[in-house]
């Protein structure tokens, strides 16, 4: 896949024609399948990580319209490796090192039942996350809030909002929505850390 070809494919997608991108999707999967199966030892997992990676690829190069990589196939494979790590290894859930001693954070496999305390902790955790979300969404500007909340209203079509909100084209609106969501995630992260600090 030459640089010019991937640019053409991405431009088509940006302009609303997803067919070349779909073909690129199929061709790339076929090319990477042997490597991905070797990485994950499972065709289903290979498919899973590939789709996850292609979503991220779409976000970066079609929505955000960043400069595409020189070797898109190699880049996608790198993303798949990242995705596989996320899926299976979850490093922060496994082990911590304290004074060079390793402590496993995973519960033993035979501890199936959760205690009442654990139930309460889980509920508190959920409540804290929703509180953080509520704080963060109110810190967003009105435009961002409207873009994000429009997704929840089945009566609102994003394409109709484009002119109303002053975007040159639909793609600009999609990009703005993406940036707003990223901003929201960062704000929720900060709010969550602050709430946990205050609770401890």
């Amino acid at each position, binding site marked *: 896949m030459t640089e010019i070809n991937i640019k053409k494919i991405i431009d088509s997608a940006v302009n609303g024609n*997803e067919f070349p991108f779909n073909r690129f999707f199929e061709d790339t999967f076929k090319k990477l399948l042997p490597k991905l199966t070797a990485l994950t030892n499972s065709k289903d997992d290979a498919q899973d990580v590939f789709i996850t990676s292609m*979503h991220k690829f779409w976000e970066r190069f079609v929505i955000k319209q960043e400069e595409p990589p020189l070797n898109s196939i190699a880049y996608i494979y790198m993303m798949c490796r990242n995705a596989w*790590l996320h899926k299976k290894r979850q490093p922060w859930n496994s082990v911590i090192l304290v004074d060079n001693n390793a402590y496993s954070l995973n519960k033993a496999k035979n501890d199936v039942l959760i205690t009442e305390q654990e139930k309460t902790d889980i509920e508190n955790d959920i409540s804290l996350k929703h509180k953080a979300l509520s704080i963060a969404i109110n810190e967003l500007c009105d435009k961002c809030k409207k873009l994000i909340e429009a997704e929840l209203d089945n009566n609102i079509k994003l394409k109709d909002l484009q002119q109303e909100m002053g975007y040159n084209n639909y793609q600009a609106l999609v990009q703005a929505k993406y940036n707003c969501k990223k901003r929201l995630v960062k704000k929720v992260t900060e709010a969550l850390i602050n709430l*946990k600090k205050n609770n401890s």
Partner: protein
Amino acid sequence: MIPEKDLDLITRFFDLDLSYEELKEFEKRILLDIKFRERCEAYKAANDIVNTTYPDKDKLVRAEKWKTLLKDKETTIATKKTPWKWVGAIAAGFIITFFIWQLNSTFQEPDLNKLIASSWNKKIGLDFNTIRSTKKDSLKSLVSSAYSTYSDMNYQSTINLLSDYKADTIYYEDVLLLRALSFYKKEDSDTALKTLDTLSKYHTGKKSKVANWYKGLIYLEQGDIKTAEKFIELPKHKTKELKLRE
């Protein structure tokens, strides 16, 4: 406040943007740096709650489409190929109705996508099962090999195999078709359409309808519905299929 550098690294981790070396460093840091791990956990929790509360509808639709594409690919490889008989299909006497649609017409994009994808999957004209390679006929063997490389998506190999095939030789119609479709799959739609044009006007008339069918599909995929409709007919109802224009 999370340091900007950490936030950037964590964001890139969740965007699957770390190189192999960066990933190794990231993992080490997660294990050793409790504060950093807590920041990662907070970002993950934030990401999850935002995407659960405000799901991206376009992304969900695209995910389903992609899963279907991969499933269809598996099914096509696994099932036995049935040669398509144009004469039989036309003789079946489908009722052909005609409708002109604008690009933002009543056809919802997912329906058009599905129609086009299923039309390509029919592999009309690619009845290479009827061409059996024999030791006595090297040309048949060559064309059969070209069909195989095309099916395996090695389009450049198909083009290379058939590059010296002489015009007016037996099976030349198959050669033109395979060349055209291979060029299209390699994003060279101009050459593909020119080759299909040659095939549609070829004096034997074999596969001229097939050539028109693919011309229609290519124009449709490119969004040029007006030109596509010179060759194929868009169905009035969503449940019907694309048909060759007679």
